[in-house]
């Protein structure tokens, strides 16, 4: 079921809810709130009904498509909901939230870096050159 939904929405990872308005995929809860904040909701609900493409894939909202395909380095993700206390500060001060999978990717890069450093330190056991004092 989840696989089918992923395929139909053409998304990599599935979180809930996923919102489809008048046959057009709008995104998750955050995206819907963004739509409301940007005053695009009234336009979307007045749009004509969009049918699935011939292969059964649901069309994306154009604004969502442009946001999803263009990495935004300056966007601090927002966690919204009842009891949420994270402040919505700009990107150049202490950030309180992160996109979950970015932690995975950063960790993979760190594993690679640490592996390299471990190799250097092991090599030094033979050569007495690596991790030696720099003076």
């Amino acid at each position, binding site marked *: 079921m989840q696989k089918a939904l992923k395929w139909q929405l053409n998304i*990599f*990872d599935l*979180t809930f809810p996923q919102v489809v308005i008048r046959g057009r995929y709008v995104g*998750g809860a*955050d995206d819907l709130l963004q739509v409301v904040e940007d005053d695009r909701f009234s336009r979307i609900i007045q749009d004509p009904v969009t049918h699935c493409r011939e292969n059964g894939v649901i069309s994306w909202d154009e604004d969502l498509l442009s946001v*999803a*395909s263009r*990495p*935004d*380095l*300056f966007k*601090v*993700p*927002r*966690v919204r909901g009842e009891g949420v206390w*994270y402040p919505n500060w700009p*990107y*150049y*001060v*202490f*950030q*309180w*939230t*992160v*996109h*979950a*999978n*970015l*932690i*995975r*990717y*950063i*960790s*993979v*890069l*760190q*594993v*690679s*870096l*640490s*592996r*390299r*450093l*471990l*190799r*250097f*330190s*092991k*090599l*030094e*056991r*033979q*050569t007495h*050159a*690596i*991790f*030696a*004092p*720099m*003076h």
Partner: protein
Amino acid sequence: MGLVWLLLETDGDSNPENGAMKGFQSRIALILLIFFLVDCIIFTLIGPSPFSPTGVISTYFGWKSRGNATSILPYKAVFAAYIVGTCILLDKWNKADTEELMKSARSSAQKQMVGYITNSLLLAIFRF
């Protein structure tokens, strides 16, 4: 991208007898360690993007599968521990002027790196 290449492709198995290469590798190790430290500091004090190099790379290439928004605080705590550990290591490394201290610094560097690898692997797989 050169830095990414350095992270992923640079091989430390060059000729150990070559004196110039020894100094080069030592400097590369120091540069990588400082890069790691600076990256962790930026991540902890600000956040992954747009200032932290690994954060920017991850955001740029992982944007399509970035997942949902979550609190960064537990990860900042982990990265702060990395900062403390790396600072201690750098201090040991800097102060190691005898063979004994050098051995000790090398041994703790290895243990620390194994710890980082294990912890980061767990973060990468399970995100905790």
